[in-house]
């Protein structure tokens, strides 16, 4: 069995992330990769696939169910253990940090599975970074819109120029040790409460 291709099952409710993992596995030469997004009927899938390695996102609420299944010989013919090697604490920490858990059938050689886990960790981390950057970009855009609206309110109500309106917002933020977007949010909220006309 030494060189036989490994059968890998990826269980992840997050479709884009699952695709990224799948692509990584295929690039690494693994052809027997199955992706599952929804755990309905998973026992039958696992029984049919007999996977050597199962990769699951750590936050999956069904992990207790899945682990229980791995331990029941009815569901899987070979017992499945978690991670590549329980003594390899560095790998375990890296995996948990990245938010990925991997289960491996008993007796599978460590060196065959380690690259799979390492790849999953790298890709999970890359995905988190991407999601975080996207979120930051979104927040940034929303903040900019807020500041624009706050400037508009000041220009209208106090007859300021755009530059002066921005300067006032900035000064207030500095004096109160808050972000400009927070001051803008307060102003927009207050204006909404006070004036039925604006916005």
């Amino acid at each position, binding site marked *: 069995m030494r060189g036989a291709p490994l059968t890998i099952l990826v269980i992840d409710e997050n479709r884009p992330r699952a695709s990224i993992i799948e692509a990584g596995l295929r690039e690494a030469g693994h052809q027997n990769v199955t992706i599952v997004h929804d755990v309905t009927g998973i026992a039958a899938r696992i029984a049919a696939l007999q996977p050597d390695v199962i990769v699951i996102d*750590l*936050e*999956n*609420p*069904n*992990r*207790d*169910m899945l*682990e*229980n*299944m*791995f*331990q029941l010989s009815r569901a899987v013919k070979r017992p499945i*253990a*978690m*991670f590549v090697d*329980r003594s390899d*604490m560095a790998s*375990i*920490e890296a995996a*948990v*940090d990245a938010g990925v*858990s991997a*289960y491996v059938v008993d007796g599978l050689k460590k060196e065959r599975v380690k690259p799979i886990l390492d790849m999953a960790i790298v890709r999970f981390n890359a995905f988190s970074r991407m999601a975080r950057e996207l979120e930051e970009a979104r927040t940034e855009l929303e903040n900019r819109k807020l500041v624009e609206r706050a400037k508009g309110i000041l220009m209208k109500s106090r007859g300021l120029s755009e530059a002066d309106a921005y300067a006032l917002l900035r000064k207030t933020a500095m004096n109160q040790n808050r972000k400009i977007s927070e001051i803008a949010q307060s102003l927009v909220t207050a204006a909404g409460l006070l004036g039925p006309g604006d916005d």
Partner: protein
Amino acid sequence: MSGKYQITAGFLPLLDSALLAAAREQGFAEAEGIQLHLVRENSWASIRDRLAVGHFDAAHMLAPMPIACNLGLTPLAAETIAPMALGLGGNAVTVSLDLWRAMQDAGAPGDLDPLRTGEALAAVISARENGGGDRLLRFGVVHPHSGHNYELRYWLAACGIDPERQIEIVVLPPPVMANAMRAGHIDGYCVGEPWNTAAVAKGVGRIVTVKAAIWKSSPEKVLGVTRVWAEQNPDALTALLRALYRAAEWCGAPGNRRDLTRILAGTGYIDCPEEWLMPALSGAVEVARGDVVTVSDFFVPHANAATFPWKSHALWFYSQMARWGQIDASVAHEDIARNTYRPDLYRAALRDLGAALPGANAKVEGALATPTPVGSAGASLTLGPDGFFDGAIFDPDQVSAYLDSQRHR
């Protein structure tokens, strides 16, 4: 004083995360110099993993879980200890309305009595077996190493039902139980609140018996910490135990129930309607819509030494792990279970709080039929009743005899 200790603790959205929530929200943690950061998790596996790698310093854990970790029954684990329990009781068994109708026809009384309810369930199962064609009834629990799994099995077995062969037990996350039952995937489940009340509120199930009736004054969740963390941070642990003890007192005062339900219903905690949380706290359990049964000890956060980590509780869980084939029975395994619960740490932390501290580390479970004053240090202490519904006694010094008696039943 604030922030002398930074403690991050994981929890699952369940009523018995109350002590941790109250410790943070009512300032008991802060008063002990702890900045308590609480992280809601999705699975017990995640709690275990994140405790093992040090993301969490402490965690809300199923009471048998640290024992399972130390016995090597889990895929990953650090050596974990339980220096405190997080209350007594809190679970119930809920069945689908279809199954309830069949049980009612078989004589189920509707008053939560475990024996007569279980006998009715046994009759339903026999009838299904004789009829042929029906699949096995399927019950959900939250984890194989949980009070839910063991008390469900104990209840069924004591009522003449073989939980290994006559029903199927599956594992599901607590918040999805009610919907899984509505969809017909399961016929019943044993879970902590508010997920039984959720089924009643959604009109999909009926509560048929409760943990507090199957085994009175029984353990459910503990505070889990790794042994290494406890040894490296003795002062932080002491502060945490003191904060949780104060939180337990607060949670146990009837006048605080409304505030507690408001805290726990919040989006950062259980994120559910406030009224789902009241039955377990008040003991007015709505078993079906408009049908209330009083269970005054449904969930006990403080009274009766509810946070004391009894070694007899650890040993009972171990006995059930052995009974159901999760672990081989041996003196070595028994020792591991006994040493997982740490009443010594509990006593040391709470001695000068005036807490009621039991004189013993273990007790004979089922020996007290009525509330009984017992030897204690600090405030006076009343324990019990603590019996199993079938009258069996668990003597923590006679574990193998107990296992024999269960095997031959």
